[in-house]
Structure formats: C-alpha cells, structure tokens
C-alpha cells in the first residue's frame, strides 16, 4: 500500500502542478472567513472592555489564527467532486480497479493541504502578530493538538464521503451537503469559540460531530482546556470517527447496489 500511495501522491502532484494559481486561490478560503469573524468579535470585545466572557481580545485572536490552520488542515470537499465523478461517469474506471476510490481522494487531500500550507502558515503567523494573539499552548497541548487535528481531518473527510455517497441515490447531492455545511457552520466553532456558545447550544455542539472537526482541535492547540479535558475531547473525536467509519461503510455498500453507472 505504501508503494501505491507513493505513486498516487506523485500523480496528484503532477496534476496540481498544472494549476498552480488555482491551487493557491482555493487556499484563500482557509483564512478569509476566520479573519472576518475575528474582526467582528474583536469589535464586540472592544465594546465590552476588551473581554468576551472568559476570553480576552488576544485569546480570541489566538483562537481564530489557530482556526485558519485547522480549517485548512481539516477541510474536505469530496461531496462536490464525487457528485461530478458520478454524473460524468468518471467513477466507473476507479471502481474497476483493485483499489478503493477513497484512496485517490485521501492522497489528493493530503497533498493539496501540504502544498497550500506554504501559503496558509505564513499568513496565519502574520495575522497572529498583527492582532497580538496570545497562546497558552504547552508542548503537551501541541502534541495533543496535532493528534486532535489529524482526528478532526479524518472525521471531516469520512463524513464528507458519507454525504458524497448520497450521490448514489441522487445525482444532485448539493442540497444535502448545503444542509450539512450549515449545521457545521453553526456548531463546529467557525463562528465563535465553542466556549462562547450559550449553554444549551454548547451541549448540542458537543453532542454533534461538527465541534470535533474544528472547534476541539483549535481549542486544544490554543492551549485552552487542561490536559485531562483535552484527552476527553480527543476521546469524543475517536468515538465520532468510529461512528463515521461505520456509517460510511454501510452507506457505501448500499450505494454501490444503487449505482447505475450513468454516463459510463
């Protein structure tokens, strides 16, 4: 499998090298939204004496700087590509090979993130300096945060494939995915740090998978929770990842039975 991944990574690199500008334009999406929310929340904090709940302006800046990196590391876009592949008949050649189509996606995902991080990380550092971000990250937070980010990426990726597989039933998967993305927008920690959500919404957020994709790894990397709480959060990620993989296997298997190989 290592040889296959090596070959797929090379192939993905060759493809991406053809569209260098487009690649970096897509990377812009990782930091535009967090910057907008950071600016908005800083304005609110300023109007309340420089604090928002338990968070200072510098804490808020640190959180949104971290979300730039974590958003970039955990984003998944397979639902749109998968729908296109089914409609254009491009899934069939992959299904005919002795390699699950998800592996092409994993390598493309990893490579894109590695390459575009060359643009994202410097921008995040610049924003951290500009907005006087204050990190309370310890080495333990850094290690747990890296694990949590990897789990968040795996979780978002697997859920992405669950929703992508809806395309087996309807070749217009966009509406379903939009609903999923709206829920993620509210509950993942994109709008605000999870700690700022009102009590009932916070409970809902921790019961749903979205927070474990973005808010949890961002909080850990910022150095927000203590180590015991961070481990508990990572436990939540592992549980949701196991559920996501189980659901994905069921949906994929059922979806293949529905597959009509249109356009191919």
């Amino acid at each position, binding site marked *: 499998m290592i040889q*296959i991944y090596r070959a797929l990574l090379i192939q993905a690199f060759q*493809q991406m090298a053809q569209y260098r500008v487009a690649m970096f334009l897509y990377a812009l999406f990782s930091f535009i939204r967090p910057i907008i929310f950071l600016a908005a929340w800083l304005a609110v904090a300023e109007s309340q004496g420089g604090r928002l709940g338990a968070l200072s302006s510098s804490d808020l800046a640190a959180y949104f700087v971290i979300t730039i990196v974590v958003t970039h590391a955990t984003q998944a876009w397979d639902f749109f590509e998968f729908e296109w592949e089914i409609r254009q008949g491009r899934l069939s050649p992959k299904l*005919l*090979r002795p390699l699950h189509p998800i592996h092409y996606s994993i390598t493309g995902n990893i490579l894109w993130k590695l390459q575009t991080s060359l643009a994202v990380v410097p921008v995040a550092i610049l924003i951290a300096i500009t907005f006087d971000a204050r990190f309370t990250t310890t080495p333990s937070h850094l290690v747990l945060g890296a694990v949590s980010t990897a789990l968040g990426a795996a979780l978002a990726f697997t859920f992405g494939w669950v929703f992508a597989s809806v395309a087996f039933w309807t070749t217009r998967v966009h509406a379903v995915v939009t609903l999923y993305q709206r829920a993620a927008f509210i509950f993942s920690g994109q709008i605000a740090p999870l700690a700022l959500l009102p009590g009932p919404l916070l409970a809902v957020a921790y019961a749903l998978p979205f927070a474990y994709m973005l808010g949890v790894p961002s909080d850990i990397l910022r150095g927000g929770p203590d180590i015991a709480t961070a481990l508990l959060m990572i436990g939540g990620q592992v549980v949701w990842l196991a559920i996501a993989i189980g659901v994905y296997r069921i949906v994929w298997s059922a979806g293949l*039975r529905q597959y009509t190989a249109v356009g191919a």
Partner: protein
Amino acid sequence: MTDAVIDVRGLTKVYRVHERQEGLGAAVRSIFNRKFREVPAVTDATFRIEAGEVVGFLGPNGAGKTTTLKMLSGLLYPTSGGARVVGHVPWRRDADFLRAITLLMGNRTQLVWDIAAADSLRVLQEIYRIPEDRYRATLGELTDLLELEPLLHKPVRDLSLGERMKVEFAAGLIHSPRVAFLDEPTLGLDVSMQSRIRRFVAEHNRRAGTTVILTSHYMDDVVALCKRVIVIHHGRLLYDGQLGELAQRMAPYKVITVALRDGAASAFLDELGTVTSRDEASVTLHVPRESAPERTARIVRDLEGSLADISVEDPPIEEVIDRVFAGERMPEALAAT
C-alpha cells in the same frame, strides 16, 4: 467441455426510472407524487464463453449490451440471476476479479487528463502490483502493437481521439487481464484507426489468449474479429452462435450483381430471382442460396457477349442484423436458449 471463463445464468437488470408528463403542472405534481416506471434493460440472459473466445455482442442502441457488460465487469448489481467471470461473482468486486478483467469504453477515458499517459501507467503498475520486469515486457509489447512510443509522454488532453484510444487500450491491458470487455472501442475513429485497433485486438487475442466480448455498431469490427455473436434486442438474447450461420439462416439468399454492356436486354433475369435494383448498366438480384451456382451459370451462358462482369456475394451483414432487429422470426434452431 472446458470451464467457461464467463458463465451467465438468467441475468436480469431492471432500472427504476422517474417519469413525468411535460408542463408546469406535471412538474409541480411530481414534487409531491413521484411516479416511477420499471424499465427492463436485460431479461434472463444466459450464455457461456470459453477462454480465448472473441464474441461479438450485437444489438441496436438501448438493447442492453452495455448494461450486460457493466454487470459482468462488476459495475452494476443485477436485479436477479447470476454470473461468474473467471470464477468470481462480478458485483462482489473482489480484488482478484478486478485484476483479471478490463472494461474499455470508446469515448470514455480512464486516464488522468492533465498528465502524461506514461505517468498514469506507472500508477496502474502499483495499483495492479505488476512486477517491474513484467510491466516493462507488457508495455514494450503494447508499445510495439499500438505504436505508442510518440504518445506516452504527452499529456492525455493533447492527444487526438484515435491516439487517446490507443493509449486507453494500453492502460486497460497493462495488467494483462484474462477477460476484456470492449464497449464500442472504435467509436468515432476514422477508418484507418478502426482498422488498426481491430488488428491490435486480434493480435493481442492471439498472443495473450485474452477472452474478449466486443460491442460495436461497426459491423466490420464484428466480421473481422468475431466468429461467434450474441444478438440482444429489447434486453433479450435473440441469437447465440456462429456469425456465418446467422447470415445463412436469416438471409437465405445470395446477391448476384450483373454488369451489362451497352444497355443489353436483361428482362429474363426477372425469372431467375428477385430483382432489387436495375439500371442501364447493371442489375442486382437475390436468388436462393442453393440455386445460386446454377443460376449464375445460366446468366453467364445466356447473356454471352452482353455480360461485362458478374459477382456473387452473401448479403451484407448489416442487412442480416437489420432483419433480426426488425423482428423477423428467428429460426427456432438458432434462437438463444
């Protein structure tokens, strides 16, 4: 009897299709009350194909050819019935099964558009776990047969349709599959390229012993490559047997074309068979197969100096197939079981 490489029993596929009338009202109603119709694409198909055979799968558009190939290659689950291809149930898509087959579709690419074909082939080498020496040998053979050398290092998007089809063949055969499903492999190609692809398929079948099922609307493909044909229409198998026998049974006549000198009288030809065309210079007539030699001799004898040329041929295979599709009764002895 040898073990069949492809063994199909009662294979059936029914699609469920959303149906609505035209107009705004019907569109609104369809939001709340969807109507579906079941469309049988393949019905109770049963046949066996032995190792190394090249079988033509014939039928008009929508007959069920491609659906059958998709089921046999594991892309589609059947509604009912069973099949084994190289000993595997195709739609379980076991890795060993997928390593043993290929499905090539004309005008469909399995190569990555933006990179050179050679790079895609390297990825396939890893996916199919082809040892380096075998990979080099197979690629060398395919390069010779398909004259690939100038094409392998160009991005696929820069290749012409014919060039791309050659590279598609290389990608589809690089893992030396035991069974090749070829769905309209010459679609859209010019006559010269069609001929080269045909020669390649025949040569590859001879060298590697690959079992081939071929669908094509170009009867030249079928005549050049397939001794055996399976005819399918409206999802049902109409005929499974030798191509030559199909022609004899469905068109039990020969076509005699007589070229005449200087508008010679030819009225007596009407007595010898059914005249299908006539002008000042030539007459074409159909005569029963068994009496073709005797009537040909009579034409030569009676026309004497007025005869410029004469030819005796089987009817074109397209005409034979048209008769089958037009619903002419298939002789019982020939009909597929």
